[in-house]
């Protein structure tokens, strides 16, 4: 059992720690210990980001990446769930496949991005497929994990309640697997972002990744750090929201 005062204390210390790190970084930059070519002070990053957003300079790029991420994440989550459920039903395929799936993330999948460009051309579609390819495996793995951890007694109870196979799946197995599925969604979204931004870095005509790479190549540190900050804030916001959803679910349902 955690008490509220402990939670508040932890939150305060954490906030202080993060602020202190930013202040230290600011100081190091201002004193010239970190030179301006390497990194601009955090305050200037914020200012740069503010200017970019205020002037609406890269709104098209931001929207481009955003739409791609949403599309890729949807593909990854839905496709990963369906494949994972199918694998769960086929244990003889699943068992030898799972170790291969966990090696999947040791390979930079985006080396296949140029091949996707040949099929889909430079543009949205290749990036979305790239992002979905990166995210889908996390969803597959977590779906098989979740469905595999349904306690046998739950299935037995379903039989006693005379539910047919489909109803057992919809009413018992899926809700029982929900905590794992949420983890899968969280990871699939995070990996979709990585896949898309990586693709934009390598070859794209627009997008946040493209802007960062372009600014880097042209020694435009203000734009680069401004856009980096935007990306980090966006990722942390999405990840934070999904994580807290996941935590709430785990806490309410207990650790199983």
């Amino acid at each position, binding site marked *: 059992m955690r008490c509220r005062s402990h939670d508040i204390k932890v939150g305060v210390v954490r906030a202080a720690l993060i602020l202190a790190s930013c202040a230290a970084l600011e100081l190091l930059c201002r004193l010239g210990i970190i030179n301006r070519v390497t990194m601009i002070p955090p305050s200037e990053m914020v200012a740069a980001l503010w200017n970019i957003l205020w002037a609406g300079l890269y709104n098209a790029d931001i929207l481009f990446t955003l739409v791609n991420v949403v599309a890729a994440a949807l593909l990854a989550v839905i496709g990963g769930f369906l494949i994972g459920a199918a694998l769960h039903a086929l244990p003889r395929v699943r068992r030898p496949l799972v170790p291969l799936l966990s090696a999947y993330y040791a390979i930079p999948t985006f080396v296949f991005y140029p091949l996707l460009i040949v099929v889909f051309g430079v543009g949205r579609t290749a990036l979305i497929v790239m992002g979905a390819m990166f995210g889908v495996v996390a969803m597959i793995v977590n779906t098989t994990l979740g469905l595999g951890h349904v*306690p*046998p*007694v*739950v299935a*037995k*109870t379903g*039989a*006693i*309640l*005379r*539910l047919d196979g489909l*109803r057992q799946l919809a*009413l*018992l197995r899926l*809700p*029982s697997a*929900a905590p794992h599925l949420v983890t899968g969604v969280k990871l699939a979204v995070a990996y979709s972002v990585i896949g898309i931004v990586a693709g934009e870095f390598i070859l794209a005509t627009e997008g946040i990744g493209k802007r960062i790479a372009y600014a880097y190549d042209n020694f435009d540190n203000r734009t680069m750090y401004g856009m980096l900050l935007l990306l980090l804030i966006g990722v942390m916001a999405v990840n934070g929201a999904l994580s807290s959803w996941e935590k709430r679910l785990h*806490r*309410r*349902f*207990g650790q*199983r």
Partner: protein
Amino acid sequence: MAGEPEGQISLRGVTKVFPGHDGHADVHALGPVDLDIARGEFFTVVGPSGCGKSTLLDVLAGLSTVTSGSATFEGKRLDGQVPDGIGAVFQQDASFFWLDVWDNVAFGLRRRGMAKADMARRVDDALAFMGLAAFAKAFPAQLSGGMRQRVCIARTLVLEPKVLLLDEPFGALDQQTRLLMGDELLRIWRETGATVVLITHALDEAAMLSDRVAVMSARPGRFIEIVTTGWPRARDSRIVSDERFGAITARLWDKLREESLRAMKTPDVGQED
């Protein structure tokens, strides 16, 4: 003996053999077993661990098919489909952690497409009956093991089963809670008129609760003795101070001791549980 089934539940020469795989030998888990359980009876099965008690319960529930012999429920053959009118509570916690207590109990009624108002009344009644009214909006993770087991019992009772099968439902609870749950079980049994089949390894529980107690042998499980307690229908846990209680428990242990020793010597292949 053989011929027309006599009880609400009848077993005639029932055996259950699990086919071995990956080079393991077949496991003869149960039987042959003959049994008649009368409508409204409180029948308990005790036996050493791994003796096939849970296999017997699976057969009675219609969860698994028999290898040979016949099993009938109200004259109809049990063939691997759970018939209407059977409720079961297991040793493992089967409360649905994604539903609150109220929705857990309403689960089966919802499946039947019952009118909202009827359903709400019956769920509230079941919650009150099991002392869960104050926890209707709680999730299982917030409850103790005993309370979760009450949720499972309420979820089963609300469907008004004709037969209530209980597979060591209090196995994970402490002794005091067990005795109190035993009282509650007796009350449920009296007030619903359901037939109760209880599987347990606790001899005192068996002696206190049952009309008849069957003692099972080590695997393959067969009945080596059926003890009739002769208790009145109105009874509760205070019966443990009756002098006959000690005699019944002693008789059960006398029969079971040898079988338990035998069961400990044979390696458990893990068919049970």
